[in-house]
């Protein structure tokens, strides 16, 4: 007979989703991020593979963030149109990640270019995941 571990499982789902109050230092995050990049780098042989690995890790972060932010800011309503998603990213996502809104939203084609800005490669890539999915929705 299977023994089901139930410890902790119900308690977590009861917790509130409001923004946590604890603040960690930016240097703690920077050091962690640096170790992640070094780890990825030790397992690949090319830059594009490195980017792909980092992007994979970022995708998980993005997916979780999307759920939380949508619940919090938009009352559970997810944006499905491209422009609205981009605005959502510009305002809410950027605020959650970097503490302030993105500077501006330029009209650009569907392909998101990678910005080499203080290690934001990880973050920009998950935009692609969101936009790519949207494109498939639009195409339907």
């Amino acid at each position, binding site marked *: 007979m299977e023994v*089901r*571990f139930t*410890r*902790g*499982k119900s308690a*977590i789902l009861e*917790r509130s989703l409001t*923004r*946590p109050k*604890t*603040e*960690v*230092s*930016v*240097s*703690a*995050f920077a*050091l*962690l*991020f*640096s*170790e*992640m990049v*070094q*780890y990825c780098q030790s*397992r690949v042989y090319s830059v594009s593979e490195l980017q792909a*690995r980092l992007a*994979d*890790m*970022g995708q*998980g*972060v993005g997916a*979780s*963030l999307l759920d*939380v932010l949508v619940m919090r800011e938009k009352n559970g309503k997810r944006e499905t149109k491209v422009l609205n998603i981009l605005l959502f990213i510009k305002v809410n996502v950027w605020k*959650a*990640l970097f*503490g302030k809104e993105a500077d501006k939203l330029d009209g650009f084609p569907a392909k998101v270019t990678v910005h080499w800005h203080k290690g934001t490669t990880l973050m920009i890539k998950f935009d692609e995941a969101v936009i790519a999915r949207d494109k498939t929705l639009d195409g339907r």
Partner: protein
Amino acid sequence: MSRQSNRATDSKKMNSELFTLTYGALVTQLCKDYENDEEVNKQLDKIKFTSHVVLHRFFQEGCAAGKITNKMGYNIGVRLIEDFLARSSVGRCHDFRETADVIAKVAFKMYLGITPSVTNWSPAGDEFSLILESNPLVDFVELPDNHSNLVYSSLLCGVLRGALEMVQMAVDVRFAQDTLRGDSVTEIRMKFIKRIEENLPAGDE
């Protein structure tokens, strides 16, 4: 000669959400990477593995990921100590008790925004526990059944070990209790092993 503390970097804080998610992504990736048997054995040989651990399949991923995060934590700790000494005006600690207080009240507060309590001192004064009521690394984290042996926050052990080694203290850090494994609090046990003597090159002094 007065030392100016860099106030600008003192106040750079961020919400712990991204930090928690990023660490989660890292552990997930490690568990995925170490699903492969041959890989596990090769990597584990590189990292000093205790001989009595039995390498069962369901055990491997957890252990490997734990060992790797510990090593990564060690690398972080080695660099973090410099950042810490630069940003805090704490001088050299005179004994292990002082070290414990500084770690709990200054370092943890500065980096993780929490203040663990220092308890359970051993009679010899060389071992103590840090009790963490909350741990930013594990907010909203649950260990699935097949990874119930994973020491998720093993990074923290590595950080403490690495940082203290850079100030000439060899310590052993391990988790005595973990909320992820069903305990009520997270308890980190730290044991002082020895003072690391600085090796001066021959001919000096």
